[in-house]
């Protein structure tokens, strides 16, 4: 049996996911390399969130297979995935402390010391009710919940969404400092490429549910003589 904190490989094999007539993910085949930070880039409606939800087991493919370490999404794979959705998904009536205790109870890879440290770093008061936190503070709390685990796969869906510029740098610093390349794979979706491009080892440009461009960030910069932001503008401009 594999240890929970070994690095996981996520594979999309000819995956299609539609909503009515719209194909959010269209015959997508892609392997997320283990131990990297992958930037999932694309404009709104490109299929970034759908892709992350498929890995998290919150959506099911219409056809094709998504696998994490060879297993299709199930309670077993959910134990390996830390997922941060773009929307507010926490119980507003719980306090910060209660929500952390609640989440930690389900995950053996939860690190109490790390959580306490991150909570302090993010300037969150454990006694405050989640519903009373500002949007920026709720975003920080979501980061704490996702990064306090030693999950092999961390999915961050627009973690900078709705956060003020000063908090953005704090969130990005937290992601970088808590990332463990020997035991984690981070997939971060965003359409704010400028601020986060330095983070990415690899990038995947998604256009209408298909791969428009992908590769190692440094290689792409070198080969094309452009920054990731410039490539983003080239692909989606």
């Amino acid at each position, binding site marked *: 049996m594999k240890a929970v904190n070994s690095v996981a490989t996520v594979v999309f094999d000819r995956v299609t996911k539609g909503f009515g007539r719209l194909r959010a993910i269209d015959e997508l085949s892609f392997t997320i390399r283990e131990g990297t930070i992958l930037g999932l880039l694309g404009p709104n409606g490109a299929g970034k969130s759908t892709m992350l939800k498929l890995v998290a*087991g919150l959506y099911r493919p219409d056809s094709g297979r998504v696998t994490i370490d060879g297993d299709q999404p199930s*309670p*077993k794979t*959910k134990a390996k995935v830390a997922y941060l959705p773009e*929307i507010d*998904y926490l*119980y507003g009536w719980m306090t910060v402390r209660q929500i952390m205790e609640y989440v930690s109870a389900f995950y053996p890879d939860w690190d109490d010391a790390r959580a306490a440290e991150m909570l302090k770093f993010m300037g969150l008061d454990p006694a405050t009710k989640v519903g009373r936190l500002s949007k920026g503070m709720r975003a920080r709390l979501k980061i704490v919940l996702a990064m306090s685990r030693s999950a092999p796969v961390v999915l961050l869906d627009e973690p900078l969404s709705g956060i003020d510029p000063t908090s953005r740098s704090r969130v990005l610093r937290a992601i970088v400092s808590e990332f463990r390349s020997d035991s984690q794979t981070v997939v971060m979706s965003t359409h704010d490429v400028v601020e986060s491009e330095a983070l990415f080892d690899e990038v995947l440009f998604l256009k209408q549910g298909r791969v428009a461009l992908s590769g190692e960030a440094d290689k792409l910069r070198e080969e094309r003589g452009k920054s990731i932001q410039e490539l983003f503008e080239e692909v989606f401009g």
Partner: protein
Amino acid sequence: MGHRGESALIAGAIVVWIIFLLSRIGIWRPDVITGVYWLPMGFLPLWVLWTSVQLYRQEWRENTSYLMLSLPVRARVITSAKLAVLVTGIVGFTLLILAGGWIVAARTGFLGSIVRHPEFAKVPTEWIIKMSLFGYGGLVVGLVVLGLISQFAYLFSRLFTRFQGLVMVWTWILMIWLLGVAADLGSVIFGWLPDFYLRSLTIFFDTPEFSLVRVESGPIVAVALLLIGIYSLLNVLLEQVVEV
């Protein structure tokens, strides 16, 4: 849980109703006060219907379904936790209602008039306790079944992008119909199972007389099997089919 406020409000309303009826002692007739007390208690099945659906509906309405469905647990952990919340509410409210009924009946003197009735002395205490527990158990089980069916109907309706309300209502009606069909089939298929008997009491010319009432096991077993099936399907829906 977020339902605490709602439960406290209902419990408070029941207490206010008890206090109001106690204030009517001496103004209204004892049997009227005792009778009227039970009228608003018909809300209980409605509360069960509402709460059992809300326990899931709220997860989607407030987007906490993202958290619920991403937890690394089998669906039965979630469904049983939600049923446990429902059972706690049912037991809490029924006990409060029964205690209130007892107080109202005692304070109006209605209970005393029954207990002092010469025929009451002829009823064995053991029989009263057994039948009370049997009746109470039946009430709780019936309400839980109502809740389970409602939860299944709600989750099933989530598979549709349109007319979810209509699908939920029709699924609910279909489930109730299926329970009836299962009971009918059960009496045939499981007719070989031994029946069980309840002692029914009648007092005839001051003489207590017990008669045996036969209760068929077949329909009960068939309905129980169908309910296990519905619960299993509920888990499959939650774990493998529904999405955020």
